């Protein structure tokens, strides 16, 4: 048996296809594959191994012939190899199996094809094996499995944390809505009773103080309501359905007119504006945006509010425009943060939560909101209730 370089090539510069290839040529072929190839008789004695086998298990082929796996491997592994050989011999044809053998860096996994060699009487006399090392793949798969289960565990943990936080927020909001308003009612009510019952005992300054208490108690009640709206906008489930924004806008403007019947505001609302959205939450958007437009046009004799839609690619963009006080675009980045106000309370009343609510609702719908304005030249708020249409990105 030879080993080393395929020396046969030198002796047969021009092989004759009719004669075929020599045993050395075949050996050269076997020696140049990355698969582990071997042949054993039915008692497990080695008849032949290829170069990859020699390299891998650090043995010379001259030395291994006649040895069995029990001479080379721990008994447990050798038993498994022998059992697989016998299975192949009994099956009469090729069988495929996974085998494990020790390697320099721990156990390696092989995908092995074994087939018997049959003599002229039809009896198997040896078994050939071709084993391909799939350790890297197996290890990668194991790593993927491990990472996946780690990820799943982390997702489970985060979900549980998120659920706990939502439950807490819910309980907090519930208790706020019940408990924090009651003391404000007492502040407001007793200030009123003082003014009524002790009218003669109070001078104008005392009555002014009481009115200030009442004003602030009412403001705080409004802030609590707005905070609850903000928390509701985050925690309530989103129920999308075809929503009629035209009708909602008319309702909201109707409410504003009832609350301030003396205001003269010219309102134009486009017909048939519909979009998929949660009607309760979309109403909150319009209450805030139209409410703002209504509020910030208070000093205009020719107050005007428009509500319409434009199309940007496949996406519908809703626009609320007014000709009111407007704001300085330098501060636009603060617009949508809770409790940020661009006007003082004496100019325009408000808690500074309205646009934060709007942004949260719009985000939960997958849409966006942006604003444009100039001081004293009105403001324009545009929003969408869906992610940008993919077509919109195409040139």
């Amino acid at each position: 048996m030879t080993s080393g370089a395929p020396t046969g090539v030198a002796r047969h510069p021009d092989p004759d296809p009719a004669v075929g290839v020599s045993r050395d040529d075949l050996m050269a072929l076997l020696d140049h594959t990355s698969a582990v190839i071997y042949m054993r008789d039915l008692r497990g004695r080695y008849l032949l191994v290829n170069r990859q086998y020699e390299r891998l298990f650090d043995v010379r082929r001259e030395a291994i012939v006649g040895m069995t796996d029990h001479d080379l491997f721990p008994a447990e592994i050798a038993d498994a190899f022998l059992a697989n050989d016998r299975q192949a011999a009994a099956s009469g044809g090729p069988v495929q199996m996974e085998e494990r053998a020790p390697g320099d860096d721990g156990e390696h996994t092989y995908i092995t094809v074994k087939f018997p060699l049959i003599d002229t009487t039809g009896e198997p006399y040896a078994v050939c094996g071709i084993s391909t090392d799939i350790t890297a793949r197996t290890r990668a798969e194991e790593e993927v499995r491990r990472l996946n289960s780690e990820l799943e565990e982390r997702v489970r943990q985060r979900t549980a944390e998120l659920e706990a936080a939502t439950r807490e927020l819910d309980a907090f909001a519930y208790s706020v809505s019940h408990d924090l308003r009651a003391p404000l009612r007492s502040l407001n009510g007793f200030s009123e009773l003082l003014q009524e019952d002790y009218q003669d005992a109070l001078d104008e300054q005392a009555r002014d103080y009481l009115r200030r208490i009442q004003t602030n108690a009412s403001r705080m009640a409004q802030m609590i309501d707005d905070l609850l709206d903000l928390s509701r906008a985050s925690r309530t489930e989103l129920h999308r359905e075809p929503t009629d924004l035209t009708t909602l806008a008319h309702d909201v403007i109707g409410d504003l007119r009832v609350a301030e019947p003396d205001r003269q505001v010219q309102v134009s609302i486009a017909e048939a504006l519909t979009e998929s959205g949660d009607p309760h939450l979309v109403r909150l958007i319009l209450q805030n945006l139209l409410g703002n437009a209504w509020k910030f046009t208070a000093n205009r004799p020719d107050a005007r509010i428009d509500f319409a839609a434009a199309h940007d690619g496949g996406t519908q963009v809703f626009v609320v425009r007014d000709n009111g006080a407007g704001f300085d675009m330098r501060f636009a980045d603060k617009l949508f943060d809770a409790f940020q106000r661009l006007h003082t309370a004496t100019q325009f009343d408000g808690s500074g939560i309205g646009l934060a609510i709007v942004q949260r609702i719009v985000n939960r719908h997958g849409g966006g909101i942006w604003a444009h304005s100039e001081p004293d030249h009105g403001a324009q708020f545009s929003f969408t209730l869906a992610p940008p249409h993919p077509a919109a990105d195409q040139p």
Partner: protein
Amino acid sequence: MNDDPILLVEDNPDDVIFTLRAFRKNNIGNDIIVATDGEQGRQLLLPDDDTAPIRPALILLDVKLPKIDGLQLLRLIRADPRTQLLPVVVLTTSNEERDIVASYRLGANSFVRKPVVFGEFLNAANVLGMYWLLVNEPSPPWHGPHRP
């Protein structure tokens, strides 16, 4: 005008003062019986001893109450044939959707949120009194089960 008493189930003493004041100010002269928790309210309506039960013209019910809360008391009121048809107005601080839905589901006739501004509170009390004591036609009192 229905001159049966009004039952106010309310644990906040300030709110009791405001409610009494609001009814007086609106010239609603009915006696007002105050229960300061749900259990007291139940004992007045459905006593478990020989005490004569009260049959108010209107029950004003807070939601958050010690011992038996407002919604539990509402459930008891609606479950008993003797009190089943009494008008119950849930009068509360909350406007949480779950309280509103639960109140109506349990058979509340009305749900009113207590306004913070006292003037609005007066107004709400006036409207409630006018409607339930004057405009509304109550069910005749219950005289025991009908026998065929």
